[in-house]
């Protein structure tokens, strides 16, 4: 069975190779090659899953050693895959959601001439992501880690003729590289501490080293997770990443890649468990980000950016849960899976709306769309109910557990973290209701106005077959797009309940992540009640602001906080002033230093030698008699010197 693991990665990798090297002759069928290979990977995943279910919990780990990768004395890196319950969960999520999104993209990218390449990149992403979750050591994980970064770079910048897309892609890669630095330092620390960076030996020897080392490793892993999962302070790239095609936002920047940080933390649970300070840092990052993302999500008028803020916030929940230790690991992953369903569904819904609206993204120019796109409305609505935690839907189960776990942390920390999580739930309810109301309810604000400026309209090639400049004609998307949305909506509705009834998910993951109950100062019912109250408050405020009053189609100036939130709470401005400007000045002055100082010393030496020889050559005046004088003079000095030497 373990021989199948490599095929999981190989199928999409083959797809990427074929599509990217295949040339134009594959243009017509490229999308289907990509989709079929993604589907193949999913099928293999399901086969492995069925096999795994048939075994006892202790025998579920499969290891496949492929080849020795980098052997240098004690540094031994292998290409080895490890399939256990945790990676299995991810494999199913990645290939499942991935296949659905491939299918959706067949419709969404239908009119893009570079479609073949798009599917090649998507397949590359799947391969890298699977490598990330299947790796049995940190260095191989790092390959997948940067591989998904590359795929993300290529896909964000897919419409690279738009300067904004190219810049966003570069920014995403660079911010991620800062995180990657953390991962590579963590690997180096592991190597010096344990002499290896394979999961098994490291985790089983954690107890033999000091807490300081482990804290350092943990913090470096956290840095890596911050980069990949868009957590404060490395969150700035995610909003810009929405420049990519919408299926990309759904797959990479909502459902899978951005959750890699959570995977990393949960996978490294053994290290974090032994380093409480690092864990505390993780929870703080999670709590701050869940509020940060939620606040940003409240102010954005761009539907995708509002959803990006939400993604950030929801991953904040997961990171928070992961930071809680064994109390939270399982719920972090559970929320990750349910979030994968509903957020991917929401993004696909947003894509479907944009598809029907000439690629308009400004929600202030939507309104009343429920009549025109019923399927999109229903699936989006279900996703909405799931994310705000409506009782019975999947978000309710997973988020509630995280809030409970946060309180269960105990002490003041528990109260603060739990309070932040509750507040986040209220804000989530607010901004998602806002998105819902602005898009599907209210007046039809798109009437009597051309939606986008000409150059923006040509930006998404899907728009080309619609009449530009004209009033949009909202319409439902084709089947190939709605079917994935329906499947995801089903997942969003029933996933949570399926996982939670009888604690199925808990029993499934517990052998890998471990679990402890903690001691919550509040009863489960109290927490659920509190969450419901927050939910109602959030929905209520949103309804009061956007449901009962008409939404202006041009954004009002807003309060100071709103304006700051629109600008991502000024974090980008800070980056720009300090890092970009500062860096520009630094490089410019270094170029100057290199030219005038380092090179100047050399050129100066050359010039002074030249000057000296210029003066010396004046002696060469061409008069034979003056040469004769110097000759005689020289001879005389020689004779004198000889005599003198003899005399002495």
């Amino acid at each position, binding site marked *: 069975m373990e021989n199948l693991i490599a095929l999981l990665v190989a199928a999409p990798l083959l797809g990427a190779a074929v599509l990217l090297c295949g040339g134009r002759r594959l243009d017509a069928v490229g999308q289907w090659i990509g989709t079929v290979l993604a589907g193949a990977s999913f099928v293999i995943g399901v086969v492995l899953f069925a096999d795994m279910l048939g075994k006892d919990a202790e025998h579920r780990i499969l290891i496949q050693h492929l080849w020795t990768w980098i052997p240098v004395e004690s540094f031994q890196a292998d290409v080895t895959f490890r399939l256990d319950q945790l990676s299995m969960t991810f494999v199913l999520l990645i290939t499942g959601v991935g296949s659905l999104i491939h299918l959706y993209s067949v419709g969404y990218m239908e009119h893009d001439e570079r479609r073949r390449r798009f599917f090649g990149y998507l397949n590359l992403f799947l391969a890298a992501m699977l490598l990330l979750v299947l790796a049995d050591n940190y260095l191989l994980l790092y390959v997948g880690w940067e591989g998904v970064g590359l795929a993300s770079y290529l896909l964000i910048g897919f419409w690279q003729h738009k300067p904004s897309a190219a810049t966003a892609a570069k920014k995403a890669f660079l911010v991620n590289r800062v995180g990657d630095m953390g991962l590579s330092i963590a690997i180096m620390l592991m190597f010096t501490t344990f002499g290896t960076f394979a999961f098994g030996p490291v985790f089983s020897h954690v107890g033999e080293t000091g807490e300081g080392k482990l804290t350092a490793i943990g913090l470096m892993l956290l840095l890596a997770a911050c980069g990949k999962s868009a957590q404060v302070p490395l969150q700035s790239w995610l909003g810009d990443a929405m420049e990519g095609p919408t299926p990309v936002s759904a797959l990479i920047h909502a459902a899978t890649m951005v959750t890699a940080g959570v995977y990393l933390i949960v996978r490294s649970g053994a290290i974090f468990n032994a380093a409480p300070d690092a864990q505390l840092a993780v929870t703080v990052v999670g709590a701050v980000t869940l509020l940060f993302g939620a606040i940003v999500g409240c102010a954005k008028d761009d539907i995708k950016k509002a959803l990006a803020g939400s993604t950030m916030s929801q991953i904040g929940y997961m990171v928070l849960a992961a930071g809680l230790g064994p109390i939270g690991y399982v719920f972090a992953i559970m929320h990750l899976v349910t979030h994968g369903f509903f957020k991917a569904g929401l993004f696909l819904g947003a894509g479907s709306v944009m598809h029907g609206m000439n690629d308009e993204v400004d929600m202030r120019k939507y309104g009343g769309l429920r009549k025109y796109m019923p399927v999109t409305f229903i699936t989006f609505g279900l996703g909405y109910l799931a994310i705000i935690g409506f009782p019975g839907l999947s978000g309710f189960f997973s988020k509630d557990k995280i809030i409970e776990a946060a309180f269960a942390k105990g002490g003041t920390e528990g109260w603060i973290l739990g309070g932040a999580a509750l507040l986040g739930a209220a804000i989530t309810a607010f901004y998602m209701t806002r998105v819902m109301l602005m898009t599907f309810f209210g007046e039809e604000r798109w009437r009597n106005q051309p939606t986008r400026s000409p150059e923006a309209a040509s930006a998404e090639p899907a728009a080309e077959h619609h009449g530009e400049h004209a009033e949009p004609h909202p319409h439902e998307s084709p089947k190939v797009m709605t079917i994935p949305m329906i499947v995801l909506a089903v997942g969003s509705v029933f996933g949570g309940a399926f996982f939670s009834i009888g604690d199925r998910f808990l029993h499934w993951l517990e052998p890998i992540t471990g679990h402890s109950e903690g001691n919550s100062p509040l009863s489960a019912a109290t927490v659920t009640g509190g969450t419901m109250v927050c939910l109602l408050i959030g929905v209520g405020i949103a309804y009061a602001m956007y449901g009962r009053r008409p939404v202006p189609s041009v954004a009002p100036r807003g309060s100071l906080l709103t304006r700051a939130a629109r600008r991502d709470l000024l974090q980008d401005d800070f980056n720009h002033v300090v890092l970009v400007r500062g860096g520009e000045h630094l490089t410019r002055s270094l170029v100057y230093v290199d030219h005038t100082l380092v090179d100047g010393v050399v050129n100066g030496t050359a010039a002074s030698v030249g000057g000296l020889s210029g003066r010396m*050559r004046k002696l*060469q*005046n*061409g*008069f*034979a*008699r003056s040469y*004769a*004088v110097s000759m*005689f003079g020289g001879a005389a000095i020689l004779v004198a010197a000889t005599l003198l030497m003899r005399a002495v």
Partner: protein
Amino acid sequence: MNPVNYLYLAALLFTIGATGVLIRRNAIVVFMCIELMLNACNLAFVTFSRMHGNLDGQIIAFFTMVVAAAEVVVGLAIIVSLFRSRHSASVDDASLMKL
């Protein structure tokens, strides 16, 4: 007669020759002064030969004469062609060999 006197004479002749080379401009005169210096050296060589009682000095004197003869040929030819092109035999006029 004391052979040292011949050495004094050689030194005197050499000095006259050297002074001539340095202060005269006419190439022919400079040339003759060089010959004078060469012959002063020859005289010294022959004297040394006599003083030390072996033939080395005399042999070198013959060498010098041969070299001087060859030099005269080349040197005079240069002076003649210089005079043809510049209508002057002044050494200062031929100062083109400089950077």
